[in-house]
C-alpha cells in the first residue's frame, strides 16, 4: 500500500469520526431544545393565567373612565395654555382697557399704542423694532406730541409714588422695572420707605436729578433718558416752567397725574399707564384686577355695617384744613364704609364747625404723620384744646398716617381700604392691624 492510500484512509476515518461526533452532539442539542421549548411553554401558560387575572382586576377599577377624564383635563390645560399664549402675544395686539381713571387713556392700533397723558398730550408708543416707514404712517395718523419707542430702557421718575408703583409690579411679577430706572427727582428732601431705593442711590445705579419742582437739567440731559415721568400742578408756576424747559431741551417726558384722580380705583389704575411704556400693561392689568377684587370685597363686607362718621382734617392755628369734598379721600372713606362729615365744607374752615359736629364725629383721621403731627392725644389737645369737644378725640379714635403712607400707601391701595375699613368697623376685621394708619394714644 502506498503512503497516499494510507493518508486517504486516515482522512476518511477522521471524517467518519467527525461526522459521528457531530451527529451525536446535534442529537444532544435537539434534545435540549425540546426540553427548553417545553419549559418556555409552561411558563407562557403561567403568564397567560396572570394576564387573565390582571385583565379581570382592571375592568373592576374603570380605568377607561379615568383615562378619558385625564384626557379632558389635558384638553382644558391646553386651552388655558392657548389663552396664555394670546396674553403673551398681547404685547402686540391684546388690549388692556381703562375702567375708572379719568386722567389718561390707552388705546391700541395694530402694533402701536396711543396714550393720552395727564396734560392731555397724545403719546405714540411704538415697538422698538418698528421700521421708520411704518412709524411715519402712525405719526401721520395721530400727529402725537411725543413718540416713545417701547419698551423704554432708561427712565427718570419724578415722584416717590411712581417708584413705589414700579416696585410693586416688580414684587408681584419679578419684572425688574426698577433696573430700567436711571434717575429720580428726589433732592434729598425726604426719607425713603421703599426697600432698596437708598442702595440704588448709594451705589450710583440711580442719579438724584434734584428737586421735582426745579430739577438739575444738565444732569437730566446727561442721563439721556428714553422717558421722564413727571407730574404737574395746574396753575403752579414751577410746573409750567418744568414743562416749558423740558420742551425746550427736547427731553421726552410724560405727565403722570395720578394724584388728581378723585376715586380710589381710578387713581390706582394709573399703574396701567406707567406699565404701558415698559410693555407690561398686561401684568399691570392683572395686578389692577386683583386690587380691584380686594377693594370691592372689603367694600362689600362693610356695606351693611351701618355708616360711621369720619372727619379727616388737620388743624393749624385754629384753621381747619379738611379734605375737600368729592376728593380721593372722600371716595376712600365711602369704600371703607364711612360717612365723610365734611363733604359740604371747602378746604379751609373754622373750629366752630368742628365743635358743632363734634358729637357726631366717630373717627378722626388727623391728616399728619408722626414726624410732624401730635405724638399723643394730650399733645393734640394742648395744640388745639377745643378738639376736646370732638367725640372721636374723647373716645381715643384718632388716627394719623404712618410715616410711609404717602410713599407706599398708594401702591398698596387695597391695604389702605382694608385699614380704614378695619378702623371704622373693628368687629368685622378682628386681628387686622392697620398698616398705613397709626392710632394716637
Amino acid at each position, binding site marked *: 500500500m502506498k503512503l497516499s492510500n494510507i493518508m486517504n484512509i486516515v482522512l476518511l476515518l477522521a471524517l467518519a469520526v467527525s461526522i459521528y461526533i457531530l451527529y451525536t452532539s446535534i442529537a444532544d442539542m435537539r434534545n435540549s431544545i425540546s426540553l427548553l421549548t417545553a419549559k418556555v411553554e409552561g411558563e407562557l401558560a403561567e403568564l397567560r393565567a396572570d394576564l387573565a387575572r390582571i385583565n379581570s382586576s382592571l375592568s373592576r377599577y374603570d380605568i377607561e373612565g379615568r383615562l378619558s377624564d385625564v384626557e379632558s383635563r389635558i384638553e382644558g390645560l391646553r386651552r388655558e395654555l392657548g389663552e396664555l399664549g394670546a396674553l403673551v402675544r398681547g404685547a402686540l395686539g391684546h388690549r388692556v382697557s381703562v375702567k375708572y381713571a379719568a386722567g389718561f387713556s390707552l388705546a391700541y392700533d395694530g402694533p402701536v399704542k396711543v396714550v393720552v397723558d395727564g396734560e392731555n398730550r397724545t403719546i405714540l408708543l411704538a415697538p422698538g423694532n418698528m421700521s421708520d416707514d411704518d412709524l411715519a404712517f402712525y405719526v401721520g395718523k395721530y400727529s402725537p406730541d411725543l413718540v416713545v419707542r417701547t419698551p423704554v430702557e432708561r427712565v427718570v421718575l419724578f415722584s416717590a409714588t411712581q417708584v413705589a408703583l414700579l416696585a410693586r409690579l416688580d414684587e408681584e411679577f419679578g419684572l425688574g422695572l426698577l433696573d430700567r430706572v436711571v434717575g429720580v427727582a428726589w433732592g434729598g428732601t425726604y426719607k425713603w420707605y421703599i426697600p432698596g431705593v437708598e442702595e440704588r442711590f448709594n451705589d450710583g445705579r440711580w442719579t438724584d436729578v434734584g*428737586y421735582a419742582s426745579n430739577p438739575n437739567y444738565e444732569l437730566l440731559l446727561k442721563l439721556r433718558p428714553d422717558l421722564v415721568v413727571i407730574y404737574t400742578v395746574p396753575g403752579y408756576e414751577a410746573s409750567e416752567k418744568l414743562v416749558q424747559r423740558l420742551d425746550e431741551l427736547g427731553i421726552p417726558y410724560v405727565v403722570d397725574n395720578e394724584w388728581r384722580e378723585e376715586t380710589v380705583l381710578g387713581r390706582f389704575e394709573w399703574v396701567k399707564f406707567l406699565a404701558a411704556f415698559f410693555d407690561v400693561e398686561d401684568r399691570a392689568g392683572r395686578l389692577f384686577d386683583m386690587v380691584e377684587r380686594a377693594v370691592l370685597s372689603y367694600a362689600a363686607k362693610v356695606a351693611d355695617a351701618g355708616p360711621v362718621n369720619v372727619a379727616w382734617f388737620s388743624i393749624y392755628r385754629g384753621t381747619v384744613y379738611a379734605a375737600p369734598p368729592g376728593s380721593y379721600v372722600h371716595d376712600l372713606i365711602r369704600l371703607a364704609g364711612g360717612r365723610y362729615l365734611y363733604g359740604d365744607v371747602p378746604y379751609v374752615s373754622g373750629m*366752630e364747625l368742628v365743635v358743632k359736629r363734634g358729637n357726631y364725629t366717630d373717627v378722626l383721621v388727623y391728616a399728619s404723620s408722626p414726624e410732624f403731627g401730635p405724638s399723643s392725644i394730650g399733645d393734640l389737645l394742648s395744640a388745639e384744646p377745643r378738639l376736646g369737644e370732638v367725640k372721636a378725640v374723647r373716645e381715643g379714635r384718632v388716627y394719623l398716617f404712618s410715616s410711609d403712607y404717602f410713599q407706599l400707601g398708594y401702591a398698596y391701595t387695597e391695604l389702605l381700604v382694608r385699614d380704614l375699613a378695619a378702623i371704622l368697623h373693628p368687629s368685622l376685621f378682628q386681628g387686622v392691624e392697620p398698616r398705613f394708619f397709626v392710632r394716637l394714644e
Partner: protein
Amino acid sequence: MFASLFLGTVHIPPGKVLAVLGWDFQSVDGYIVNGIRLPRVLGALVGGAALAVAGALYQILLRNPLADPYVLGIANAAIFFYGLAFLVGIQVGLPALAGQGVYVSSSVMGAAIVSALLLALSARYGTLYVLLFGVALGFVFGAGTQILIALADVMKVGAFVLATLGTFSGVTWDRLLAMSVACLPALAAALALSLYISPYVLGEEHAAVMGLNVRVARISVIAVASVLTATVIAYVGVVGFVGLVGPHISRLLLGTESPQRLVPTSALTGATVTLAADDMARSLLPPLELPITAVTSLVGVPVLIWLLTRRHVQG
C-alpha cells in the same frame, strides 16, 4: 364788638347767644360762643391794638408813613424759621415753647433773633442804619424762604403758604391769656413811651436839642414794638395792613401826628379795624374762613381812601 359774637361759620340765633354768653361751656352752642367766639373777638381786639401801636411807633421813629410792624424784617424772619421747620424739618425753637407747637416756637425764635440784632445795632448806630439793616435783614430772610419754597415738595408749598397767613381762629382762652400777658404791659409801655418820644415828630435832631435822649428812645421803641409784633406773630401769624393803616386812620381822624395822641388812638382804630376784618373773614362766605390779611385790606383801604379824599376836598 358785641355784634361780633353773633357772627360765625355756624349760625346761632342771637337770643341763644345772649342766653349762653359768659357761663355755658357745656352745650355745643355755648361752647362755640364762649369757647371759640369770645376769645377770638378779644384776641382780635388785643392783636389789632398791638399791631397798630407797633406800626405807629415805627412810623414815628422812622418818620416814614409807609412803615409797618414788619418793616424791620421781623415777619420775614418768623416765616423763614417756620419754613425751616415745616418744609425742611429743621426745628429751631425754645424748649419753653415746645408745647405750643412748631409754628409758635419757630416764629418766636425768628422774631427774637431779629429783634435782638436790631436792638444791639440801635444802641450803636443811628436810626437810618437800623432801618436799612432791618430792611436788608427782611430781604435776606425773604430770600431764604423763597429758597426753601423752591426746594420743597410742591404739595407742601400750598399748605405752607396758607399757614403763613395770619388768622385769629387759633385764639383760645389759654393763648389769649398768654398773648395778653405779653401785649398789655407792652401796650402800657407804648403809652408811656408816646409821652417820652413826643418831640420825635419834629425829627431826630430837633428832638435831641429839645432834650430827648434819642438813643434811649430808639432802643425802647424797637423793644416795645418788637415785643408787640413778635407776640402777635406767634399766636396769630402775620396779619398785614392793620399796622400800616391803623395809625393813618387815627392821624386823619384826629388831625394830628403827635405821638401822645396817635399811639392810644391807634390802639383803638387797630382793634376796631381788625375786629371788623375778622368778623368779615368768618361770615362773608361761610363755612369758608378767609385769610384775615385779605380782609384787613378790604376793610382798611376804603376807610383810608375815604379819609384821604375827604381831607383833600377840605384842603
